[in-house]
């Protein structure tokens, strides 16, 4: 091979400067790690906010000196105001859903492993890939800005220079309105109360920027997967992770534009005097629309319209969060059970079915919006039908484990934890998905418990599993298994202790998003449970410090790993550890087998790698290459 042709192998030569290599990198692996680091930073912020909320709920009125120092107006005397609490709720949800659950599973692990698992040397459009990360990071910086602009009086006044609608410094940590930003509250501007000026503007802008970043990423994922698979990597030979990332990218591609459109309308309502989401004759803060220069005339808008636009995006979004976790779980269960994924083909179709149905169920978030009961029935039936592909996945996971000699690594524990949390959280979906039951339970803690278990914590468990599993490939070193096990058990028991009592609170009727329950006689008996949840939350959050320590310690000091430490079969384990700049050192692999050829009769080892070509290896097309 001449030097000249060898040069052509690399689409872009390996960068040498630090900035091109680690900061403005076009290498999908570095971009993946950047996304994971972004998520690790964002989750720290989101977790701190949940900690503050728990402190306020279980020890109301306590004096917290640190809060007083940081937020003199939001927590006068160290006691947080209800507005401060509500802005915590909003920012916790927004940061977690967008900057953790959307970035780490897809942007992080997807970016790093999708090209390697299909045998490509990079994404189809590396520069676009870099842009998608940096745009997302700008979105994160803007949402962080909301914290300081609303929390700090002088910064808030400085922001008013942009325009009167950008006045901040109202003593919150951002807007109030939940991660859903319901109109008309979110559409009115600063007359609607604390946090609704600069905070809400920055919130909308941040979300719009995030939409653009995600769209750029989704384009790249789809094109790369469809067009850059290596020789022999047919669709049905792809690991289930790739199917999950692909479906997620399609969901993102079709749902983020809708949120972007809604976000543009919302921003226009806020700063350009339009009235898409503001109905006629609204009376807010003692002012009637059109009678005061601070509250110009608004006519003909529909607050429900925002709910439709938001949830048309919002429901696919929860699958954007969970699907990559499902993919990683299938992948890891199979590897450590040393068995093929049970029903590979069914798993693929289940992923597709979940993605498809996800576009037709947004109304189940709006059962109490006054929709026609007939619409509610339709949304209800469609929602419950998602139980079918979900059950297919769950039974196939159990089928994969059936009769296996399981290797209980930390990654495997977290994958098993994913299955457990997905089932436990999904069960209440069958209750909340029925409009008649939802009418009673809407906006109570059972909803909080449901989505935290099934979409929040389960996704996070999928990501924990993925990180413990792929860490050796990414950094050439194992994460510490002993710390990992302690981390798993503390987190696993912790999250159940947090969220199971919340179901009970919800059934009793404890409403979501209240900063204090002191005024409600019928909720007083629940205080021990509230206390239990808070104590569990403190312990579980502390346990994450172990995880952070494990990650950063292991990058430098962990036990060294070989090329295929888990004896896995897919392409990422055929290349060097960590993979070279073009993933396969100039020669792309050829694929001869399905992704989960474990326990193959007649094979020299108990597994056959996708690239194993030898004639002595029984050939098969993956899942059904050999019957048991």
């Amino acid at each position, binding site marked *: 091979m001449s030097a000249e042709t060898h040069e*052509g192998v690399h689409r872009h030569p390996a960068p040498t400067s630090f900035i091109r290599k680690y900061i403005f990198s076009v290498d999908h692996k570095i971009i993946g790690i950047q996304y994971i680091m972004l998520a690790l930073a964002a989750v720290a912020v989101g977790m701190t906010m949940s900690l503050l909320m728990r402190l306020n709920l279980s020890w109301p009125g306590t004096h917290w000196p640190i809060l007083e120092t940081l937020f003199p107006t939001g927590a006068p005397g160290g006691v947080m105001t209800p507005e401060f609490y509500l802005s915590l709720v909003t920012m916790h949800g927004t940061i977690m859903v967008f900057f953790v659950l959307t970035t780490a599973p897809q942007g992080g692990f997807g970016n790093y492993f999708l090209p390697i698992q299909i045998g490509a*040397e990079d994404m189809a459009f590396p520069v676009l890939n870099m842009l998608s990360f940096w745009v997302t990071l700008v979105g994160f910086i803007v949402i962080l800005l909301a914290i300081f602009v609303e929390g700090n009086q002088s910064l808030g006044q400085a922001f008013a220079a942009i325009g009167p609608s950008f006045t901040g410094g109202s003593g919150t940590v951002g807007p109030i309105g939940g991660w859903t930003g319901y109109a008309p509250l979110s559409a009115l501007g600063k007359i609607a109360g604390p946090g609704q000026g600069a905070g809400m503007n920055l919130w909308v802008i941040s979300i719009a920027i995030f939409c653009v970043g995600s769209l750029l990423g989704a*384009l790249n994922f789809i094109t790369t997967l*469809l*067009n850059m698979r290596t*020789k*022999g990597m047919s669709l049905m030979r792809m690991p289930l992770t790739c199917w999950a990332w692909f479906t997620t990218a399609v969901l993102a591609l079709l749902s983020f534009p809708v949120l972007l459109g809604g976000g543009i309308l919302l921003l*226009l309502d806020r700063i350009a005097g339009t*009235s898409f989401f503001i109905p006629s004759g609204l009376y807010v803060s003692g002012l009637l629309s059109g009678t005061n220069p601070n509250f110009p005339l608004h006519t003909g808008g529909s607050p429900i319209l925002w709910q*439709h636009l938001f949830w048309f995006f919002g429901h696919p979004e929860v699958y954007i969060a969970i699907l990559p976790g499902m993919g990683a779980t299938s992948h890891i269960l199979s590897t450590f059970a040393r068995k093929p994924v049970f029903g590979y083909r069914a798993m693929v179709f289940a992923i597709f079915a979940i993605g498809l149905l996800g576009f037709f169920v947004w109304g189940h978030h709006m059962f109490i919006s006054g929709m026609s009961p007939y619409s509610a029935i339709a949304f209800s039936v469609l929602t419950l039908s998602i139980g079918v592909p979900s059950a297919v996945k769950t039974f196939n996971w159990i089928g994969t484990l059936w009769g296996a000699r399981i290797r209980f690594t930390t990654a495997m524990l977290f994958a098993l934890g994913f299955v457990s949390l997905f089932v436990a959280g999904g069960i209440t979906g069958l209750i909340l998905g029925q409009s008649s039951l939802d009418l009673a339970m809407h906006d109570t803690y059972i909803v909080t418990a449901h989505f935290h278990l099934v979409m929040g914590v389960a996704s996070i468990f999928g990501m924990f599993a993925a990180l413990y599993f792929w860490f050796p490939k990414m950094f050439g070193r194992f994460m510490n298994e002993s710390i990992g096990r302690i981390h798993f058990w503390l987190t696993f028991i912790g999250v159940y202790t947090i969220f199971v009592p919340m179901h009970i609170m919800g059934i009793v009727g404890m409403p979501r998003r209240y900063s204090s329950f002191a005024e409600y006689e019928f909720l007083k008996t629940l205080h021990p449970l509230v206390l239990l949840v808070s104590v569990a939350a403190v312990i579980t959050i502390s346990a994450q410090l172990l995880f952070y320590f494990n990650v950063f310690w292991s990058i430098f000091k962990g036990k060294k790993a070989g090329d295929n430490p888990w004896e896995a079969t897919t392409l990422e384990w055929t290349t060097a550890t960590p993979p070279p700049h073009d993933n396969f050192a100039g020669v792309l692999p050829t694929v001869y087998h399905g992704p989960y050829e474990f326990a193959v009769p007649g094979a020299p080892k108990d597994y056959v790698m996708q690239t194993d070509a030898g004639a002595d290896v029984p050939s098969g097309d993956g899942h059904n290459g050999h019957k048991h």
Partner: protein
Amino acid sequence: MLGPMCQAVMATMVTSTKKATTKGMGSGGRFPGPNGKKPGGNGFHGGDGGNKRKFSPWSYRITMWMVLAAIVMMFGALSVAYVMVSEEQRTPVPMPRMFFVSTGLILVSSATFHQAKKALEQNRADTHLRWLLATLGLGFGFLISQLAGWRELARAGVYFSGHPRSTFFYLATALHGGHLLGGIGLVFYLVIRRLRPLWQLSAEKNVTWTRVVGLYWHTMDGIWIWLFALLLIFK
């Protein structure tokens, strides 16, 4: 053509199982197939001599389809918004006459672009350039007539910040105009490509670029017709 035959041959060589070649999913050469449609995969194993990664038209085409899917979703969402908020509006907004003119202009521009593409495929380089320039001119003409339409609306007392429906007239045209401006940029890029000295050498790239720009241009045309019909029907 050698292509399909090669693919079939490669597919049998690549995949060791017969199933992969006979069953629907799994064959190496199917749309869009591993590594695009090149029999040699990414060029590493194909026996086409070099190790250089081939230009893949499918990457561009798939990406353009995906971009358009996202854009259509956004305009779809805005259309739903328009229909929902237009229910209680009592006074109809008159359709500016200039919008009829611009509709004609954009329809013609699609035709001229089609001519440009046809000329390229028939290797008539100068005709190709002429039709591209005509498309550019019509694109600018469209934008100017849209702006004139705004003036007409303003004269009729329809302003941006009135009722949501009035806003939509401006918003839809502005967002569409912005996207069409992107299309003008793309056509402009085709013109620049055409004027490069060794333009003829990258024939495959030229055709691919012309095709994906064409997809974009015709879709923008279609979106305008859709918005125009929406504004006409839901008065």
